[in-house]
């Protein structure tokens, strides 16, 4: 297939999606009822059935209304009509100050993560962009998290991260709120929902640093990119969510095993990263829950024409919290994730395997301890021979790391964590040890926690 026909196919996909999205938003509008502050009069309630003629009349009337309002619509889209934001006199309203009947147009919160660290290695192998990486004090991140409902159809979420030397848009995406058929679309820049830890931010981690598997496979920032995601909640008796996303395949710290730092022109959808996942949840009892995910990501890599990288993963999360027992505030979680990566390189196919397994035990309302084991094997070629990995040339043996920590939460808005680790990389002469003390402060709106 030559370049032109690939471009044409991409265009066809885009064009054929457009009316579908428009139709679904129209469907979503149809059942939308008036807001609750305008009480529905009983006589307004639709009678149980309308004749097809009546429905036709309504549709015609709506059609002519729509064309009339189009003529009145402002020519630009830069400024919304003033009536669209009633009561928005002071710009943003600060969250938490205006509850009850107040307006709330923007939830803002700042999360500060700082750490003091000591490593025995001269060059610690910390692969996460928010990991402490050097002896002394480290600014892990200052995250500005923004969330708001845009209109009845979209919600906006953003995570902007400030480091000492710059600002980065980590995530900024819209989520649909009113698509039919249990569908939800996200669009913008977002962390892909590959596995369990990748889509999360340091605030929700059980450890100071990120598992090295994420840094090795996807990059320090975790797998993310500009793109779009469609997810579907299956109409089944238990929770099954199926999702797929297409994202930009470039980024040294976000799509390392794909195009990475190279910037090639996108000539067909095959030049983008595709991610798919199935997430299932089983409430084994009121106290014990199990979540199981299967993920896959595929995209081009820069080692040659049409060379591709595939990553397969599975994750398990077990959570025991005896809410049915009086006076018991215990929480025990177990989480494990395994990644299998396959890369086509000139004349060979490289494969490697990474995993982490961790367990955390909150033994009192403010105290918890956690233990993590990580493993990453060297890349091997098709015949099982060790091949020099073009991304990590020194990674010629297995690496494993064991981390243990204790956490103290003065309140749910602050956290102190002391963590020790032993990092054994087969290609280094001796194991490296590290000690970190991390402080996290959360201020602003009270964020809602995902499961």
């Amino acid at each position, binding site marked *: 297939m030559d370049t032109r026909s690939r471009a044409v196919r991409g265009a066809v996909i885009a064009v054929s999606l457009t009316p579908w999205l428009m139709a679904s938003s129209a*469907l*979503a509008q149809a*059942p*939308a*009822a008036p*807001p*609750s*502050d305008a*009480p*529905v009069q*009983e006589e307004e*309630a639709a009678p*149980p059935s309308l004749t097809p003629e009546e429905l036709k009349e309504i549709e015609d009337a709506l059609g002519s209304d729509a064309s009339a309002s189009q003529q009145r619509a402002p020519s630009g889209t830069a400024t919304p009509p003033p009536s669209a934001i009633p009561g928005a006199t002071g710009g943003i309203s600060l969250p*938490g*100050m*205006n*509850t*009850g*009947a107040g307006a709330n147009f923007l939830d803002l919160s700042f999360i500060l993560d700082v750490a003091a660290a000591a490593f025995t290695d001269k060059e610690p192998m910390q692969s996460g962009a928010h990991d402490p990486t050097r002896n002394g004090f480290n600014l892990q991140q200052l995250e500005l998290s923004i969330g708001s*409902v845009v209109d*009845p159809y979209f*919600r906006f979420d953003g995570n902007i991260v400030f480091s000492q030397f710059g600002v980065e848009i980590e995530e900024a995406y819209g*989520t649909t*709120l009113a*698509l039919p058929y*249990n*569908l*939800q679309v996200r669009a913008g820049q977002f962390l892909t929902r590959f596995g369990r830890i990748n889509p999360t931010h340091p605030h929700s981690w059980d450890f100071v640093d990120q598992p090295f598997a994420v840094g090795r496979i996807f990059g320090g920032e975790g797998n993310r990119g500009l793109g779009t995601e469609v997810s579907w*909640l299956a109409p089944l008796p*238990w*929770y099954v969510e199926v999702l797929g996303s297409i994202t930009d395949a470039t980024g040294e710290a976000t799509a390392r095993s794909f195009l990475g730092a190279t910037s090639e022109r996108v000539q067909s959808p095959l030049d983008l990263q595709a991610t798919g996942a199935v*997430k299932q*949840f089983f*409430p084994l009892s*009121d106290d014990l*829950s199990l*979540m199981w995910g299967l993920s896959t990501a595929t995209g081009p890599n820069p080692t040659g024409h049409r060379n591709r990288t595939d990553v397969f993963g599975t994750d398990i999360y077990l*959570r025991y*919290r005896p*809410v*049915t*027992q*009086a*006076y*018991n*505030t215990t929480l025990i979680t177990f989480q494990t994730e395994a990644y299998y990566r396959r890369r086509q390189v000139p004349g060979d196919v490289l494969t490697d395997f990474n995993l982490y397994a961790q367990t955390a035990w909150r033994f*009192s*309302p*403010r105290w918890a301890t956690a233990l993590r084991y990580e493993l990453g094997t060297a890349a091997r070629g098709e015949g099982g021979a060790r091949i020099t990995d073009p991304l990590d040339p020194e990674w010629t043996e297995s690496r494993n790391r064991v981390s243990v920590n204790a956490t103290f939460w*003065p*309140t*749910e*808005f602050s956290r102190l964590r002391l963590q020790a680790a032993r990092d054994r990389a087969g290609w280094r002469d001796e194991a490296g040890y590290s000690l970190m003390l991390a402080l996290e402060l959360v*201020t602003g709106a*009270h*964020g*809602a*926690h*995902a*499961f």
Partner: protein
Amino acid sequence: MRPTQLFAAVCAALTLFAASPARADVNVVTTLPDLAALAKAVGGKHVQVQALALSSQDPHFVDAKPNLALALNRADLLIAVGLELEVGWLPTLQVGARNSKILVGAPGYLVASQFVKLLEVPTVQVDRGQGDVHPGGNPHFLYDPRQALAVAKGIADRLAQLDPENAEAYRANLATFTTELEKARADWEKRLAALRGQPVIAYHRTTAYLSDWLGFETIAYLEPKPGIPPNPSHVAGVLAQGRQRKARMLLMESYYPDTTARLVASKIPAPLVTLHGGTDFKAGETYIQHINEMVERLEKGLAGKGT
């Protein structure tokens, strides 16, 4: 099949999908089991009710389990307490549920606190230095049957709005519930008349509405600030205060750790009365049964017996 026929068939299929199927019941999901019990009392046989949290669970810290999003996905009406009680877990579920009927502002989302005469609404500036403050007011109003009745009336109105065919039934159910609850309340107030004016110690600020109803005085809280666990110096102060004022009992919910409370209760000495945080709706308990059970425990506490 000719293109026009195909088009017609696709349109018909889409219409079938889009039209909501005829259903007898309104599917109600509530955050707390107390609200579920009230919704069931006024909804009767025309509603299916499910609570997201358990009565034994701290309503501030419920896990946003995905199966709860599944329940919200199928809900016609979501009833929440409001006042930021559920702020840590409900918003995630609402977005994940993919159900525009129950989003903020939709008729299928009802905030119960709007019907309540709120207490402990801060009149001066607050920040989190005061602990886990609720800037909109104290959200633990369902311990007071008078406030619960106002909420039940609000739920009945909303059900009548969403399901006008059965509006009469909802009003009739509300009338029955009102009669029963008012009768029970007169009895409860008589039984607990001796509690009026008595000094009581509580664990968390959950007793505002209960003391407003029953007239007891909460002289101290074991938590130094809302959401901050007890520390030794504060506990010593509470103990001294309890002894000096001759506290009649110590009240706490079963979802808090009990070691400190038991120690303080034994040192005062005063009985430790454990309150069920809510109606055990899953086991079929009604709101009136739940309050009745609480009144029994308070009665025992007055007699010097802990639970």
